[in-house]
């Protein structure tokens, strides 16, 4: 708070150390705020209040000895508090005219004593010691700040609450009344009904965090239709919930940007604003409360903007909750909804009641979804829909969208007053009436007529829903009338492209009925139902419903047809269409892990494999789409390989449909984790088409899939050689700039694999790839960083490349990535650092030049991640080659930290740990220290490891350690000699020598010992 207030307060002279507070309404209000806070502090936070300031607050007071009462020692004009600190200094001391105070409890008391002089005192206090935000010494006001941080706040976003919005609206309404100075014409809620939670939106919008809708008429522009949600305020599309403007943090900001008149005149309102005594008083109580809760975020982002925005800042005074009060997240949404329903229903038209039911169901369902937050990794949905209204509740749901959820949250349209509805709405309403009240003939006519509307248009889609058409359409599916079913499905198929309709269909139990229809003998019905399921099953709950009602099995059965015979009869053609729609539905369903499993169990894989031979693109796309979706599962990857699908996938890489190519590449991308699959891709000559596809640089999705496939295929060196022939690396280097991250990750990954070959390292350099790679080290995408560090590390193994990296300060960038919170990035960066240190000129000097760098890397030894530990050990082994650096890391306590790690069983870590220990023995008494830290005995056990590379490193470490007699004794006791004797016969000369050296040292000690004893 201190920080925020300091910035906000208007000092007379900004630069001088002891400024005077200007007498402005802002300051006055700020003072009141502070006063309120201080007054209540000792009762609210008794412990903190006792905290003794490092430096007392001192100011020139107008209080006199006579103002003080019993708890003080009064001697003439001076006053001392009876309360003292540990050293016996009084917590309060008054020697008129100056006063010094050492704790908040005293401060509170003064404020209470001062009665009518309160404000003056607080002000004098602030002026006497203006708080200095940059100053790190603990100023009392900063304590205040940090204390309030203790309260639970984790969000950085500013949230609005119903109370805050209400206050804003009240304030704005007050602006409407005054003749000359008026800045707004009118401010109105669209709904007079207020729920107990303070919201005025219908419950199904409240779940999106929307608080109320407003129509504000500024003096100079069109009326503004505004949605206030917990995420902020924005303009809506008048009759729709859609967001049509940016999100602003509050109403005033929005109005300022939308109405120049408002922006201009609001400043003049300052005084008027201040003169709102009744609200003001009430608000102060809340204010303090709010301050405590929402403080820190305010001090972060809020103040910055406000420094120069006087007017705005002044408005903030009047909005207690405004930005200060943190929204207690979903509480109000979940709790406040139940009771007001009955009342609400009375007030609403029947129509709304229906949609409310939806909302209720929807909400329930969403809550359910929250509970069952699945831990499926899934792919992150690439095309996140914008979720303006949903942001409010989004954090609750965000976890659950780890699975690809194209459309979990979308703005909903509200069923508004009937005035501005389009004509389609009425026509559709009429048709629905005929659907409801007609016999089969009338129903069919109405259905056919409804299809003449543009069902792709949201107005029509939502109109059907809003007039209760969905219920009727879904009910029709349960009848025996095939024509009505067909007609209904034809409509549902179209309108289910809308996410809200999908949800409504699912809520009405439409999926269950459609799954049943899949059993129908009528092929038209089958394919229409499958296609509609394909559209509806775009969100998790729907996919689950399909599975739970046996839909997956039935859909898989649809796939059974003869896809590729040359001349098909009409019936067979229909079968193919049914199969195609079945594949479409499975594609949608396959985004859930359980469904992938269900498809496999239902025997879908061989059927998909058969359909994969189809010559028709419209069949292939859903089939390959399903396969690539399922390829995230190991069982599928194996099946794709075993069923010979790689060949077909490769074949389709050569088609001219980008979507199909993308899915094929994507499937290969996922499958090529497996070595055999990589070989198959090469044997089927799939590598060249992949390289050719790199030229489709405009289609980013395709490019991402292609580069991904190239990356994974590059894991096999034979493939790298092929790619070398096709000059793939040259193209890839060209793709290092101006690409979206998902492409970059793959491109860099491919380069990293390619660079394992020396020739390619030179190629990357010659194509100018080093610089963009090093530039990418400054990115933030974790996956990208892992790959970039790997690529840079691979390149750094070449001296010429290293020169360039060094020149671009790449090592420093790598080093700073050690600070990245992601262990994968840390490890990858540490691995990359190894060759850099090895190949850089004056590497020791370079490493030392990184301020705090050595300490940083040593501290990473505290990590719990094996890979990080191994990589850091490897890096430390390289660093320790420089004696001076070794000395520094020894000072940072590398020896005990390494010793602590020795008990590991991980061979990779063992190897690098042993290397590091071997190196670190070279300084001072480190050998002895390792022995004392108990590192020797575990090292001996390493010799029993199956990994020969561990043996070499360990033998070297033991050789170094054996130069200390005590270590020799420990080794000997642990039976090292026998193990080493075996290693002395190794073909590995380094190992041989180290083992022999170690045994020699032990032997020498023994001889010396004997000599001492008997000689």
């Amino acid at each position, binding site marked *: 708070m201190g920080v925020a207030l300091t910035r906000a307060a208007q000092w007379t002279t900004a630069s001088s150390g002891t400024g005077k507070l200007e007498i402005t309404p802002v300051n006055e209000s700020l003072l009141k705020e502070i006063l309120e806070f201080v007054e209540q502090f000792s009762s609210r936070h008794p412990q903190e209040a006792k905290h003794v300031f490092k430096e007392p607050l001192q100011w020139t007071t107008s209080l006199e000895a006579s103002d003080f009462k019993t708890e003080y020692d009064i001697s003439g004009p001076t006053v001392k508090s009876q309360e003292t600190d540990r050293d016996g200094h009084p917590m309060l001391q008054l020697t008129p005219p100056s006063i010094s105070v050492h704790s908040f409890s005293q401060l509170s008391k003064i404020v209470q004593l001062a009665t009518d002089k309160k404000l003056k005192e607080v002000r004098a206090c602030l002026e006497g010691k203006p708080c200095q935000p940059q100053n790190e010494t603990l100023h009392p006001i900063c304590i205040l700040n940090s204390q309030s941080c203790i309260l639970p706040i984790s969000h950085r976003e500013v949230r609005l609450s119903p109370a805050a919005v209400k206050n804003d609206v009240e304030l704005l309404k007050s602006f409407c009344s005054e003749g000359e100075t008026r800045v707004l014409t009118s401010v109105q809620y669209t709904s007079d009904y207020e729920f107990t939670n303070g919201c005025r939106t219908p419950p199904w919008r409240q779940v999106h965090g929307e608080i109320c809708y407003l129509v504000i008429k500024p003096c100079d522009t069109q009326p503004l239709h505004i949605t206030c949600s917990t995420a902020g305020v924005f303009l809506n599309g008048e009759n729709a919930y859609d967001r049509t403007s940016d999100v602003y943090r509050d109403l005033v900001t929005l109005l300022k940007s939308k109405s120049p008149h408002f922006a201009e005149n609001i400043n003049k309102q300052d005084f008027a604003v201040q003169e709102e005594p009744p609200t003001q008083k009430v608000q102060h109580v809340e204010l303090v409360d709010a301050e405590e809760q929402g403080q820190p975020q305010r001090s972060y982002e809020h103040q910055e903007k406000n420094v120069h925005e006087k007017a705005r800042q002044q408005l903030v005074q009047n909005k207690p909750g405004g930005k200060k009060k943190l929204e207690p997240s979903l509480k109000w949404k979940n709790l406040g909804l139940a009771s007001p329903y009955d009342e609400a229903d009375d007030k609403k038209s029947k129509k709304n009641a229906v949609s409310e039911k939806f909302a209720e169901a929807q909400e329930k369902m969403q809550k359910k979804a929250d509970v069952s937050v699945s831990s499926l990794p899934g792919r992150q949905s690439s095309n996140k829909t914008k979720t303006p209204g949903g942001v409010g509740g989004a954090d609750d749901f965000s976890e659950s969208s780890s699975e690809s959820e194209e459309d979990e949250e979308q703005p909903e349209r509200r069923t508004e007053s009937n005035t501005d509805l389009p004509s389609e709405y009425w026509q559709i309403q*009429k*048709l629905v*009436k*005929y659907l409801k*009240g*007609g*016999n*089969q*003939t*009338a129903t*069919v*006519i*109405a*259905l*056919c*007529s409804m*299809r*003449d509307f543009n069902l792709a248009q949201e107005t029509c889609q939502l109109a059907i829903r809003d007039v209760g058409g969905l219920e009727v359409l879904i009910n029709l599916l349960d009848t025996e009338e*095939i*024509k009505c079913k*067909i*007609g209904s499905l034809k409509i549902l198929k179209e309108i289910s492209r809308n996410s809200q309709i999908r949800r409504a269909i699912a809520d009405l139990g439409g999926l269950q009925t459609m799954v049943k229809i899949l059993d129908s*003998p*009528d092929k038209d019905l089958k394919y229409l139902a499958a296609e509609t399921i394909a559209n509806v099953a775009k969100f998790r709950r729907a996919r689950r419903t399909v599975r739970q009602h046996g839909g997956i099995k039935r859909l898989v059965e649809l796939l059974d047809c003869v896809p590729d015979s040359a001349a098909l009869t009409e019936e067979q053609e229909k079968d193919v269409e049914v199969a195609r729609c079945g594949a479409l539905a499975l594609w949608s369903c396959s985004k859930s892990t359980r469904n992938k499993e269900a498809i496999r169990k239902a025997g879908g894989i061989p059927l998909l494999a058969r359909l994969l031979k189809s010559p028709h693109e419209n069949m292939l796309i859903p089939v390959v789409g399903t396969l690539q979706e399922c390829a995230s599962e190991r069982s599928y990857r194996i099946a794709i390989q075993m069923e010979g699908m790689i060949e077909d996938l490769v074949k389709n890489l050569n088609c001219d449909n980008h979507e199909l190519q993308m899915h094929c590449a994507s499937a290969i991308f996922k499958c090529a984790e497996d070595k055999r699959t990589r070989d198959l891709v090469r044997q089927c000559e799939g590598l060249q088409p992949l390289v050719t596809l790199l030229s489709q640089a405009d289609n980013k999705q395709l490019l991402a899939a292609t580069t991904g496939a190239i990356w994974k295929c590059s894991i096999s060196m034979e493939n790298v050689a092929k790619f070398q022939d096709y000059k793939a690396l040259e193209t890839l280097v060209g793709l290092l700039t101006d690409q979206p991250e998902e492409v970059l990750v793959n491109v860099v990954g491919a380069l990293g694999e390619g660079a394992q070959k020396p020739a390619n390292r030179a190629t990357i350099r010659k194509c100018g790839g080093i610089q963009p790679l090093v530039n990418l080290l400054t990115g933030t995408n974790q996956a990208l960083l892992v790959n970039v560090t790997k690529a840079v590390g691979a390149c750094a193994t070449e001296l010429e490349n290293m020169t360039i990296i060094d020149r671009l300060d790449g090592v420093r960038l790598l080093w700073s990535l050690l600070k990245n919170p992601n262990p994968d990035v840390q490890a990858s960066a540490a691995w990359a650092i190894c060759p850099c240190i090895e190949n850089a000129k004056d590497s020791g000097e370079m490493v030392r030049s990184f301020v705090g760098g050595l300490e940083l890397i040593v501290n990473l030894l505290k990590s719990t991640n094996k890979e990080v530990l191994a990589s850091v050990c490897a890096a430390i082994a390289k660093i320790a080659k420089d004696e001076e650096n070794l000395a520094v890391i020894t000072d940072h306590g590398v020896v005990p930290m390494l010793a602590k790690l020795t008990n590991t069983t991980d061979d990779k870590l063992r190897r690098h740990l042993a290397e590091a220990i071997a190196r670190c023995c070279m300084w001072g008494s480190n050998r002895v220290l390792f022995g004392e830290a108990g590192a020797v005995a575990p090292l001996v056990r390493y010799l029993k490891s199956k990994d020969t590379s561990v043996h070499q490193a360990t033998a070297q470490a033991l050789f170094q350690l054996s130069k200390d007699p005590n270590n020799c004794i420990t080794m000997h006791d642990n039976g090292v000699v026998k193990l080493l004797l075996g290693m002395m016969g190794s073909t590995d000369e380094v190992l041989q020598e180290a083992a022999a050296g170690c045994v020699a040292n032990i032997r020498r000690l023994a001889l010396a010992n004997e000599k001492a004893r008997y000689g």
Partner: protein
Amino acid sequence: MAEMSAMNRKLIQNLAETLSKQVKHFNKTEAECLIRLFNGLLGDQSDRRVGNGLDRGKFRNILHNTFGMTDDMIMDRVFRAFDKDNDSYVSVKEWIEGLSIFLRGTLDEKIKYCFDVYDLNGDGYISREEMFHMLKNSLIRQPTEEDPDEGIKDLVEITLKKMDHDHDSRLSYADFEKAVRDENLLLEAFGTCLPDAKSILEFEQHAFQDTLEH
């Protein structure tokens, strides 16, 4: 009866052979079965006279009981469509010809047939009035509505808007045909005049298998 059937067997077989050549969709055996069925249906008639066939009442019974039709007017029209010579009886030839469309007609044949059914006065057009007439029972009357016919009239307008391509406020055969080709569901736009798949299956099973077994 049995004697008569035995005497007629030869006759029936000859007739079946002839008819199966004239009428599409049925082979000789099937035609024979249908003739037997026809005769069986006639046999119940007490005032049976040679040359006559099924009268209106009898035929409507079949439509209602076997094919589940309910609308009197449509059933009358179906009878008329079967009764090509307009003699108020469906002869055995008309029976088999009618059934061939009824059970196995192609889309083209069905369009023609349905149009004939719906063209109440046989003038080659389905007029507004005819539509109104056919649709008048298709909506549940809401007691609250001022004009109970309002909905029907509206439905007629909707249909015209959908099907009347030449905008002459009536449906010519061309209009009807085009509309149905665009949207097959409109084949029976003004009332069910064709059996559904289930009753076709049952009827064929009954006619072609059960009859043979007797």
